[in-house]
C-alpha cells in the first residue's frame, strides 16, 4: 500500500512539475567526466559499448517508472512500440538491453559497486559519493 502511495505522489509531482532534473550518475572513482546526449542515447540503446576506454554498463529503472518514461521520451526519443521493435532486433543479434533495477536506491548501489556502470536518478535523491555526468531537464 505504501509503495502505491509513493508511486502516486511521484506521478503527481512529475505531472505538476515539482520533481527535479534527472541526473545521470557514475561512481565518484569513474574516469568518465561528462557525456553528450547523443552518447547517452547510444549507450542506452547498446550501440556504443565503451566510454573513454571503459566498458559501459547502463542501468534502467523498471518499465513504467515515471523517471524512465522521461528518459525514453527525451533521451532515446522512442515510444514503447518503437523500443520493443528495436530490442527485438538486438535480442536476435545477441545484445542484452540495459540491466533493470527495482529502485533509485538500487541504482545508486549498483553504480557505486560496478566499474563503468551508468544510472539515472531524480536529482533530489543524489548523494555525494556519486558523480553527475549529464543533467536532463524534465
Amino acid at each position, binding site marked *: 500500500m505504501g509503495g502505491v502511495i509513493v508511486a502516486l505522489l511521484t506521478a503527481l509531482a512529475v505531472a505538476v512539475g515539482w520533481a527535479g532534473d534527472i541526473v545521470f550518475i557514475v561512481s565518484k572513482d569513474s574516469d568518465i567526466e561528462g557525456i553528450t546526449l*547523443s552518447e547517452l*542515447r*547510444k549507450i542506452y540503446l547498446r*550501440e*556504443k*559499448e*565503451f566510454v573513454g*576506454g571503459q*566498458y559501459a554498463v547502463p542501468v534502467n529503472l523498471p518499465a513504467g517508472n515515471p523517471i524512465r518514461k522521461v528518459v525514453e521520451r527525451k533521451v532515446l*526519443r*522512442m*515510444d514503447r*512500440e*518503437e523500443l*520493443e*521493435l528495436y*530490442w*527485438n*532486433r538486438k*535480442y*536476435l*543479434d*545477441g545484445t*542484452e538491453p540495459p540491466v533493470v533495477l527495482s529502485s533509485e536506491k538500487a541504482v545508486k548501489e549498483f553504480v557505486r559497486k560496478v566499474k563503468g556502470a551508468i544510472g539515472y536518478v531524480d536529482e533530489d535523491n543524489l548523494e555525494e559519493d556519486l558523480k553527475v555526468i549529464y543533467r536532463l531537464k524534465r
Partner: protein
Amino acid sequence: MKSLLFLFVFLPLLVFSQETLHYVPGRGLRIQPIKSTLGGYVTVSYERSDIHESFELDDLALLIYGHPLERFKYFLELELDDLYSVKNGKKRFKKRIDIERGYIEFLLSEAFKLRAGRFITPVGLWNPIHINVLKWTTSDPLTATEFFPKFTTGLEVFGNLPSDFSYSMFAQNNRGISEGYNNFLTRKVIGGELRKELGENLKIGLNGGWFEIKEPEEELTFFGTNILYRVPKLELSAELMYAIEKEKYLPETRWSYRLSYYAQGVYRVFRGNYAIVRYGFFKDKSDLRHYRILTLGWNFRPVYYTAFKVEYQLRRKKELSTFLTSFSWMF
C-alpha cells in the same frame, strides 16, 4: 550435431536452479550464472502464384548467446530450415540442423571489435535483419540475395569511429561452416561497409567486396549504397547494388553485370499495424533476368514478439505476381 544441441540447449536447463533462470516472452531464458540467454524463433509461411504454391514450416531456430566476460561474447544459432514444406503438392521433411551463426567476439575498444566464426555478412540494410520476424515483409528484395553471400565464415573487424562513422570489414579464405546453407557456395570472400549517421534520423552506407563462387565457377565484384531515414511512425529506405560477374575460364574481356535497387516506405497506421510499399528492380545481363516488382504489404504485430504479414507482389508477367503470408514468433 545432436550432442551439440543437447550441450548448448538442454544442459543449462538441467544444471541451473530455477532461481537463476528468468524467462521473458520474446526475450528468451536468461541464465544468470553464465550470463547467457537461450531463445529462438519460428516461422510458418505460405506463397501462391499462378505457377507456384508452397507452404513451409521454416526457420525453427534455437539460439544461445552470452557475454560472460567484459570483453568477450559468444553466439550460437542452430537452425532447422525448411523443416516441413509442401511445394506444388510435394511434401518434404528435412531433419538436418545447420549452424546459422556461430562466433566469438572480442571487444578491444569502441573502434576495434573482432568476430571470428560464421556470421551474417554485414552488408546493406536488409541482410543484417533477414530473420523473418524482424523483416517488414516475408519476401526479400533482390539486393539482399543476388550480390554477396548472406553468411561469411571467417573474420570480421568492426566498430564505431569518431564523427558518427562506423565500419565493418570481413574476410573468408576457407570452407564455410554449414556452407551448403548459404545463397552462394563460396570459400573466398572479402569486403566491407562504411556507414555514417547524419543526425539521429538519417543513416547512409557504402559497401564493396569480392567473392568467388564454386559452382558455377565465377567471381563477383560488388559495390553498393544504402540510405535509411526514420522518424516516429515512418521509415524510408533504399538500397542499390551493382556487381561485375566474370566466369573463371573465360577471357578477361568477357564479363557481365547485374544491377538491383529498391525503395521502401513503412508507415505505422495504428498501434501494431504497419503498411509497406516497396518498388524493386533487378537486371542480370548474363542470364537476361529482368524484374520490376511492386510489393504492397501489411505487417500486424499484436504483441512485440510475433509478426503476421501479408503481401502481394505485382510483376509485369501476371503469372509471376505472388501472394505471400507468414506468421513468425520469437520465444
